[in-house]
């Protein structure tokens, strides 16, 4: 679900605008983005605000709210998506505790599952 690779700061036009990590949807099939309800990230125990999170797939990206209305794209099975968090200055290099919780709506389940994971990841220098 949370990948070791791809945990790095995001630099745009010389400015570090945030950081990113790679994640896979913990589910046995791909899911339309409208049904991925939440991607909750916390860094070193600090929850990242929902508005700061974007999902990037094959050149396109959406905020969590935008995903709710996206019916023409899906997070494919086992596909590594880039989760981009806006944070001026990004993160200090070195190890950070990364916690991730993905909630997704599955029509045939009599509950809305949330899958959590977390471990220390080292930020690519």
């Amino acid at each position, binding site marked *: 679900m949370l990948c070791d690779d791809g945990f790095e700061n995001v630099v745009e036009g010389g400015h570090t605008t945030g950081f990113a990590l790679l994640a896979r949807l913990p589910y046995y*099939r791909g899911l*339309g983005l409208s*049904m991925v309800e939440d991607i909750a990230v916390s860094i070193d125990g600090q929850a990242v605000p929902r508005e700061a999170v974007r999902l990037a797939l094959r050149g396109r990206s959406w905020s969590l709210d935008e995903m709710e209305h996206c*019916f023409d794209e*899906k997070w494919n*099975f*086992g*596909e590594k998506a880039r989760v981009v968090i806006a944070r001026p200055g990004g993160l200090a290099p070195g190890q950070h505790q990364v916690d991730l919780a993905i909630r997704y*709506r599955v*029509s045939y389940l009599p509950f809305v599952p949330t899958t959590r994971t977390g471990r220390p990841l080292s930020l690519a220098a």
Partner: protein
Amino acid sequence: MSHQIRRGVSLYSFQNDTFLRHMTLEDCVRTCAEIGALGIEVVGEQSFTGWPEVGMPTAEVARWHALMERYGTTPVCHDFMLDYKRVKGQVMPFAEQVASVKKDIDFGAALGMRFIRSLVSVAPEVLVACAGYAEDKGITILLEVHAPLHFDHPWIIRHAEAYEQSGSQALGFLPDMGMFVHRFPRVWKERFVRNGVPRHIADYIEQAYQDRVLSEYVLLDVQQMGGTGPAIAMAETLRHNAAFEPKRMLDFMHRIHNIHGKFYEMTEDDVEYSIPYDEIVAVLKQGGYQGYICSEYEGNRWIEDAHPVQSVEQVKRQHRMLCRLLDEPIPAALQA
């Protein structure tokens, strides 16, 4: 007793390997062909990309047919999902559900499948409304009868009555052998113990399952034993699974066209730890079932926290068992 039951595999069984990109679609198809499991079932939204939101993955469909050709395998079933909660807070209107199923009929047909599998929570009216369209495309829609449902549950009876009334032969059932869990799966119990269930409570629940005790009683007992969180979750599984009888398939056999050979753990001596496949195959033979038994390995999620997942080995063990039960010679790739 001669029979026309053939061996197949749902690539769902290799989900751990394909998720982590340790196996490609071709690896899966080749593995199945080698062990003589020539029927291939897929969860469309697992084995192909973009479907249905982005549209028909034409290139991948072409490659699929090339693989069928190369390995002499036969497309059997496309398991489709019908996300009727696609829009948050709404249930997809009837007409849209019908249109959505028709798209999956198209996809199944494009893949050369004979069947597409509907999940059990789809309303019978939706499937009946698609029966004509399915017939035209040479597809039969199969409702998966899956725990906690079983062939005597009113919801399934309602589907069966709707199919008979429709007069169409393009509607049927796909029973998942997870309905017939006759012993509490060992891999479940050990996972729950690893999750923190005290051993004496886990033993109690396993014995209660063996004694066929009503789930509500087990839940009360576990609470009174001081069980919390994981222990309650383990007891709750008894609401979901129960040791129903394989022979209850006989009344519906004329509508059963595919079988999910669900399994959680094949032991070293090629026996499924909790599902009575000898009884199941005997019933299928008795009922004159003609079709595939497609392996559906689901033990991975129960052991991945502590053990390496060996999906291919598990599928091989199940197919050695199936060869024995189906009176087939064991192919070389399955020789122990």
